[in-house]
């Protein structure tokens, strides 16, 4: 029973990430909202909190965010086969499309059309990432402390040269400290 379910899940992972990989325009980061739609909303493989935790880990690791996310999610859901399925899914469309384009050499004219398309897509991609961030925030920010942490982090990210990794480290430290404060009060 479990084996069939696992295999079916791996196939779903494969096709899900292939779909996402084919239709993500505007960089790997734009994949995140699309991944969230499938993984959290559609298939309910992860909760919103678990998805955000995934983002925390993948932001800290080197490599393309999209690949990291695929590996993590695949592994979390069905172990190593899942990781393989998701990774192949996310890489295959890019691989195939680029090979096709490179082989049938883009004429300069066609490249201009693609550039126009890309420029048109950019505002929509920004909107996509923004709406996903707001949705995730609505579901996960539950206290005033969380909200102020998010706002401070946001302002620091936009207006100061502080590297995101430092913000993440700050988040980890504050999380652990606030927990030990809570247990001290209770204990």
């Amino acid at each position, binding site marked *: 029973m479990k084996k069939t379910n696992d295999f079916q899940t791996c196939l779903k992972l494969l096709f899900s990430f292939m779909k996402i990989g084919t239709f993500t325009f505007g960089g790997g980061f734009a994949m995140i909202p699309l991944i969230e739609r499938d993984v959290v909303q559609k298939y309910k493989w992860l909760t919103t909190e678990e998805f955000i935790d995934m983002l925390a880990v993948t932001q800290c690791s080197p490599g393309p965010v999209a690949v990291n996310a695929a590996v993590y999610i695949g592994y979390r859901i069905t172990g190593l086969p899942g990781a393989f399925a998701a990774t192949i899914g996310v890489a295959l469309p890019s691989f195939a499309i680029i090979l096709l384009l490179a082989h049938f050499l883009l004429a300069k004219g066609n490249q201009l059309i693609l550039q126009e398309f890309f420029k048109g897509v950019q505002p929509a991609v920004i909107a996509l990432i923004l709406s996903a961030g707001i949705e995730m925030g609505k579901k*996960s920010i539950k206290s005033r402390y969380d909200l102020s942490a998010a706002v401070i982090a946001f302002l620091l990210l936009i207006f100061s040269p502080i590297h995101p990794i430092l913000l993440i480290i700050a988040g980890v430290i504050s999380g652990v400290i606030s927990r030990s404060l809570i247990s001290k009060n209770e204990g």
Partner: protein
Amino acid sequence: MLPLIQNEVVLKNSWLSMAQFADIIAVAEITPGPVAINTATFVGYKTASFAGAFFATLGVVLPSFMLIVLLAGLVIKYKDNKYLKSAFSGLRPIVVALIVGAAFLIGRETVTGHRDLIYALAALLLMVKSPLNPILIILFFGLGAVIF
């Protein structure tokens, strides 16, 4: 990642000229999918045909694969550890801020006038209020730009 690729491909190994590399980057950023994979596949193909494309793509994916499997394994194993749980709960608002911030950072680079801003807001409205698949909305905006 791109400067690192440029360093390896153009400067260290002279597989491609700077001009050829620049052309590849231009295409890799426009085509769907992660830029890193697109670039690796393209550079690999130009350098050593299909095999080059395959191994370059494998190369860009493999370290991430191994590291993330390791990290994900640790997270799964120590899922109930109270320090890990509190670390993650402290992290969540930060990560949300990073995502929302990323939208603004990208916007800062690419939104160059009132028109782009209006498009972005219109897209936002559509995505939040309508049940349309965001992929369709994105395609709509892209095709709209090409047609007009």
